[in-house]
């Protein structure tokens, strides 16, 4: 399974963090620091895989953003690269020629898209169209002022 996904800029500013295991805030901060230093220090023409503690780190740079995925030992690294690429494609389709600013100013949308693609450290949906349609429908639902369709009383 995947343990975490981080997006950060060339200057090391965090743009997105998704954790798939329960760890403390301090531990998260430490990992973020170590990942940014390790990945940003890599020279340009090296391979995209690293070993860190007992995890494999797969990273890829798209324009000014680094996408960094921490996966467990049995995972297929080449497929992890494909996962990163698929996520970028989904963002691109949603925002139309996505750039870093889109992700900064609409970070919650980036999370919603990620939550339709990955879940619990695994891939949730392998079809791009289905993920896109789900996001569009959820967005439309958000526009509706109040929901008329719920039949169960929600507890407050």
């Amino acid at each position, binding site marked *: 399974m995947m343990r975490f996904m981080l997006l950060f800029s060339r200057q090391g500013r965090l743009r997105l963090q998704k954790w798939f295991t329960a760890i403390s805030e301090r531990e998260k901060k430490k990992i973020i620091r170590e990942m940014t230093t390790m990945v940003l220090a890599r020279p340009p023409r090296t391979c995209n895989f690293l070993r860190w503690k007992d995890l494999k780190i797969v990273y890829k740079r798209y324009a000014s953003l680094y996408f960094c995925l921490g996966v467990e030992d049995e995972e297929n690294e080449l*497929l992890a690269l494909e996962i990163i690429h698929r996520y970028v494609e989904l963002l691109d389709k949603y925002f139309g020629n996505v750039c870093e600013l889109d992700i900064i100013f609409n970070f919650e949308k980036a999370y919603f898209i990620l939550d339709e693609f990955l879940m619990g450290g695994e891939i949730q949906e392998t079809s791009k*169209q289905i993920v896109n349609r789900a996001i569009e429908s959820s967005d439309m639902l958000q526009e509706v002022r109040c929901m008329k369709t719920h039949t169960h009383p929600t507890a407050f």
Partner: protein
Amino acid sequence: MSPSVPLQEMIRAIRSARTQCEERGVIQRECAAIRAQFRNTDNEGRSHNLAKLLYVHMLGYPAHFGQMECVRMIASPRYSDKRVGYLGAMMLLDEKQDASLLITNSIKNDLSHSNQYVQSLALCTLACMGSAEMCRDLAPEIDRLLRSSNSYIKKKAALCAVHIVRKVRELGELFVPSARSLLSEKNHGVLHGAVVLITQLCEQSPETLERFRKTVPDLVQIMKGLVISGYSPDHDVAGVSDPFLQVRILRLLRILGRHNEAASDAMNDLLAQVATNTDSTKTVGNAVLYETVLTVLDIKSESGLRVLAVNILGRFLLNNDRNIRYIAMTSLQKIVVTDHIAVQRHRGTIVDCLKDQDASVKRRALELSLALVSASNIRSTMKELLIFLSSCPPELRAHAASGIFNAAERYAPSQRWHIDTILHVLTTAGADVRDETVPNLIQLITNTSELHCYTVHKLYRALLTDISQQPLVQVACWCIGEYGDLLLKGECQETEAVQVTEDDVLDALEIVLQSHMSTPTTRGFALTATMKLSTRIIDNVDRIRSVVSIYGSCIDVELQQRAVEYNALFKKYDHMRAAVLERMPVIQKNSVGQTNGEVGEETVKESQAAKVAQKEMALPPQPAGQVCDLLDLLGGSQEPLQPSSSLGGAASTQPTTAGGDLLDLLGGLEPTPPTPAPAVTVYEKNGVTLTISCEQQSDSGLTVTLTASNSSDSDISGFTLQAAVPKSVQLQMRAPSRDSLPANGAAKLTQLVILNNPNKVNLKMRIRVSYTSQGSAVQDMVQVDSFPGIGAAGL
């Protein structure tokens, strides 16, 4: 959809702050505003506020005051509120926070919501941060959703079930039937989720794995459909149909086919088909091929398929993409021991990868090259390795140097080649070689007596060029000291003759002595070498005497001691000097387990001479101490159970030989033959009897023998013993003599346990017995409080 304007304004304000201080100010103001608005129960802007807080949290600022707001938002009837509320829960709440329990009820309600997007939010949050409590509560709900007709919900429920099973193992049983039925789905998302769930269930429990083996034909069918089917626009990635699903199915097949002939046979054809049909021009095709190769190599595949797999890896090695070369080498490294011949075919490519620019590829290539060295390819491989050594990155030097030494030692075609290789390494990477190289090399040189002349000439020349590489200088000094007479003779068959005068040699040694680059050890070598030359040269003995007396007042204590002793040799014991400093006899190769108490050569009764000999042979420190520490690590804090596997094996031989040497040094204390100790029965059940007997080996060491026998009518299989002892006692279990007990006592099982009780605590042992009898697994625990054969007061 419309962006959140208040959120974007805040983000803009934060980004326009020019300094860290200004940013903190903006954020403090914003947080204060957010907190004020939380108290206000206005409906409109609530989601925007929480979103702002989440942004601030991502920048690294504290946001715990938003936790209760998340709980409130999740309970709101509006979808926009729920969406942000659940996002906040995933970011701010984790199972360690108390507030997380409060959302359990909301999640439960939302799981049965009529709108699938609300259900989806609840499922996602549960899979992200659900604690064990919440999982236990909601597992039946998830199982119900696994049977729903909505594939959007089913696929999410499957992954939620995976999380539940990871958190609470026992709930795995609950999901087995639904997992099985999900395999007949057509929807790829659901299928993927099902495969992940089944993989998780199989990894956790061997019994479930047995049950799911029957699904292998279905999985093969699904894969075939994916591989052969035509273009499917929904799932196609660069010509490969749903690579994500293919890789997951391959991984599941790997787990099911491992150690099982029948299952492996059933998937042979499929794997061959995938391996040959998948398009390898893009990364995605290579990802599938990679997974296929891993599966083929892990299951009991036929040899033709294995060769195919290794050839794919060989092709990967030639790929332009650095990533693919890297993973090819990682995989080859795993199989280099088992499929050695197949990997040898690609040795040329691997050795070429030593020249790659990427450091990780280089490291892998180095390890593989060292693993592939054999008697037939030693010369060519060594050439490449030596070229690599001169240009390799500094962090790999030590590893490369020691690897080259090992390879040279095992496969050297000739002595001269061996010495040349070592000299080459010392001159290129001398600073990075390990400490025991020096005595090893010295020992090697003394053994090749016909090459002494050649060696000393080469070393002298190397010494003249460069005195910064300490190991090289040490070996050179030692050789010049020992074989100085050969050096001065001038002629040598193997290399060109060079006229070397005594002054030249003494100059060289003096330069080493005085150089600030020389370490104290090196200077010690140089001083001793100078001293030895006093018997091998004719004219300049006085010069040596003066050098030696100068160092009699050196600040370094070691040098001072040596100089004083040598001075004494000149003055009072001059008649012994020649005998003391004569040529050393051939040194025996010291094995690792011996103590420093072992005295090397005794040429003279003079203890000083013996000390000189010992200093030269800096024996490697006893690793036995490390073994005991390892046992302590395994011992852990509370009396844990130690695996009965043969950790014993190699590591255990060292402490016991150390004990043996100790006894020898004490003047040959004969270990009294152990009186046959009485055996006490500690466990008797189902016909299985376990007896225990002890022998005291030393002051704190005790050997316990566990003997098991089976008096029932049916065979017992999978018999294992595990033992735990109090914290300060060290325990080592040797491998058992067998792992099954045939019926009616046909054979007994014995297992030795070595204990060390240095603190002399009251000795107790807890033994766990596990075995399978008549198809059912039995596990029992026995506590042993008194050990037969030792005193009642403990050791």
